[in-house]
């Protein structure tokens, strides 16, 4: 009898442990390979060159730098979604600094050059975002919350007004950010812009405000279905400690692209995941 008892005990234990093992393998559903996520890195090397944006984008300077292709995904959290083909796109990005200024280069495909921004037509745009504080939460990427972010947004219409010295097409435009998504026709009157790039701060969705000191210069050129934009800003912010200072080391950034002809404006854009800048 002893043998039977031990045998039954062993069988029961084995069965239970087998069940536990099977259950544990499936406790998050069918087991799959988990992909590793790595934050892509962008080298910001030192180059003893300076670009005068008035002359152009200096393609010969940029040619020397290796490009990074960053995947963009259309922002799907807020409805409605555009009836377009392809929610996924990519942007080419390069960067360098000259110990005085820092330069960013963004290039992405776009069938049409849209430089008018008003209530029914929207301008193409692109932006780079930097969290002001060092420790960021990953979800800060959604228009920055919990920590302040500094957004440099280059807009096609502002570029046109600034560089081509043309007056704005209309007096009012629409540019809603959350939470005015459903109030589609909420026009905002145009303010006089100095530069082609808006230097903005945001702490949370709906809190985008232009900075007192606009420090960023930028220019964009559309050619053969490709936009190219370059940002330029002194390494050290004029705001001192309160601003984003690019010192040697690592810093997070993120990118965004607006395609005006598809109806992109405000919160409707394509965004990237975090990109780690390696400032040398």
């Amino acid at each position: 009898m002893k043998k039977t008892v031990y045998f039954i005990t062993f069988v029961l234990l084995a069965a239970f442990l087998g069940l536990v093992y099977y259950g544990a393998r499936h406790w998050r559903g069918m087991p799959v390979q988990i992909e590793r996520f790595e934050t892509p890195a962008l080298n910001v090397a030192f180059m003893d060159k300076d670009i005068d944006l008035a002359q152009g984008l200096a393609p010969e300077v940029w040619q020397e730098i290796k490009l990074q292709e960053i995947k963009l995904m259309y922002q799907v959290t807020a409805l409605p979604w555009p009836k377009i083909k392809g929610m996924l796109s990519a942007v080419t990005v390069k960067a360098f600094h000259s110990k005085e200024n820092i330069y960013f280069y963004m290039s992405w495909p776009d069938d049409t050059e849209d430089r008018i921004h008003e209530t029914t037509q929207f301008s193409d745009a692109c932006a780079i975002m930097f969290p002001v504080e060092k420790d960021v939460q990953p979800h800060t990427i959604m228009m920055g919350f919990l920590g302040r972010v500094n957004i440099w947004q280059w807009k096609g219409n502002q570029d046109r007004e600034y560089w081509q010295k043309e007056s704005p097409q209309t007096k009012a435009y629409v540019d809603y950010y959350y939470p005015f998504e459903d109030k589609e026709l909420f026009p905002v009157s145009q303010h006089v812009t100095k530069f082609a790039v808006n230097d903005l701060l945001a702490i949370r969705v709906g809190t985008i405000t232009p900075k007192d000191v606009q420090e960023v210069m930028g220019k964009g050129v559309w050619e053969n279905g490709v936009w190219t934009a370059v940002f330029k800003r002194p390494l050290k912010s004029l705001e001192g400690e309160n601003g984003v200072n690019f010192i040697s080391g690592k810093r997070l950034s993120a990118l965004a692209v607006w395609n005006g002809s598809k109806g992109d404006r405000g919160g409707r854009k394509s965004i990237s995941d975090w990109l780690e800048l390696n400032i040398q």
Partner: protein
Amino acid sequence: MSVYRLPFTVYRKIVVGFLFLSSIFFFLSSPSFAAERFFEVKAKKFSYTPNIIKVNKGDKVSIRLISEDVHHGFFVDGYGVKTSAHPGMEGALSFTADKSGRFSFRCSVTCGSLHPYMIGYLYVSPNNLWVWGVFGVLALGLISWLITSKKKQKDEKLKLFGIIPLEWRFPLTKFKPLRALLKSRWFPFLPIVFNLFIFTIILLAGFIGGLGAGNYNFGVMIVWILWWVLLMMFMVPLIGRFWCMMCPFPLIGDWIQRGKLINVGKQKSWGLGKRWPNKLRNLWPLVILFWVSTWFSGFFTVKPFATFILLGAIILIAIIIALFFEKRTFCLFVCPVSGFQGLYANFSLFGVRSRDPEICKKHVPKTCVVGNEKGYGCPWMELPYEMNRNTYCGLCFECLKTCPYDNMDLVLKPFGQDLFAERRRTDDVYNRRSTDEAYKALTMIGIFLSFFLAFQGPYGHLRDMVTAKTFGLHGYLGYLLESFTIDFLLIPGSLFLFAWLSKLASRSKEVKLKDVFVNFSYCLVPVGIAIWGAFSLGIIFPNGSYLLHIISDPFSWGWNLFGTASIPWTPFFTGLMPYLQVLVTLGGMLFALDFGYKFSQRTYKDIGEAKRGWIPILIYLILIHIFFVRIFVG
């Protein structure tokens, strides 16, 4: 001049003066000028920052809710207002704090495993309930002192609250249908099979549920919300080991031992039939086992697969113990739930007792112990013919089935009768009042404290510790150490201190300190029952609506069996909850005071010693009840 010789009028003046002073205190804490208050509350798994908000009655309160990781909600008990926030989109809430007291605010959107326990506290002063609670405790204590200090001699007959004789018994099995039911071999088999069916669903739901949301899982909700609440609030205090009667865990073991499921087969258990070692024939294994099971409370109460592992393991151990040991050794000495059920069953209203001891004296052999063709000898290895405590009786009713004289009864008795039962002539080693039972009562209080602070308190770092977010001294190890210190050192130590003071005050020379300690620990039986009951209210009222969802959709597969799957989370009675919790706590104190004085008379030789020895314990009970009222509403 001894206090006891003061005339009664002085006592009256003391009471009136006390009432007057308390009403002044109450009046002083009146509301101040109403203001507009704004709070920015950050929500993160599983706590809020700030976790404690204080406002005054009449203030207009505005809350901005910011989520730091995932979709969180914010619901205020008692007010019923709520909002929620996704990361990046804040929530806003405005209300006027027109009710005063302490209210929990909790998360209203499933955000993670510990979602139902993501709680913070809102204090709206003046916190009158806290004042009235303390007042109630002090009043009860004072009344007890007044009554007991008047006594001139020991009570000849112990009476519950001086009204109901403690030895009163009413045989319910006088009623033929009840007796016929209990004598049938289908009872309690049918309730057991029903519970087996429920447990099959529970185990399957736990297995399938994996690491999904516990609040939408049949296993987690039925066991930790429904069963636990029913157990602590109704089954144990009223009926004693009612769950043991219909528990499906030993069914397979019984079947293997007996060879038959329902009919009467061999009396001797198949299997190795070993006898549980004498040294462990007490509540100590259960004290330790139950405490060890609480190490994992942060996992199995919230994760479905962990519930599966726990219950599966218990069933497995039940079967294996039945193979190796005799009869219901598992139920008696290994089942984690058995310990407090056994101890607290001594408080309950029901029990199985023999009616006429003369019949039993002449009956040889005693079939209630050895069994006959009608039933088995007591599987709990009790001696039904002279059983006078519920501790080790599992209400299986075999003795009613086997007794040829129908001399066994199911009796109705007053609360706490068994706590005063005398030691029997043929008492086995384990069935007398001793330190193991004392420690069971004490550790239950300590475990309540850990559970309440972690699962119904505003302390996020405690929840992190319980769920082993980190393993070091500030994490899981710290939780184990803190649990051990409170359960085995601090709380028993506090009783020990007051037991020593009691012995000192009594001026008794012969009484043993250990006896004082053990006897007075039984006061903590009604206290434990009351505070666990109040804790259960805090579980069922906010989370009871999940039960409606899981009966329709047990596995989160999108079923809708009874049409209740889309009922949203709806807390109920949350405003009434703190009042009920205070009332239940005071109810427990009432019994503790009544029993305590009786224990004092049992422990000490003469009335003078008993009255003097009672005072430190009275003070101890007052202090711990103020502490409990503070935990619930302060």
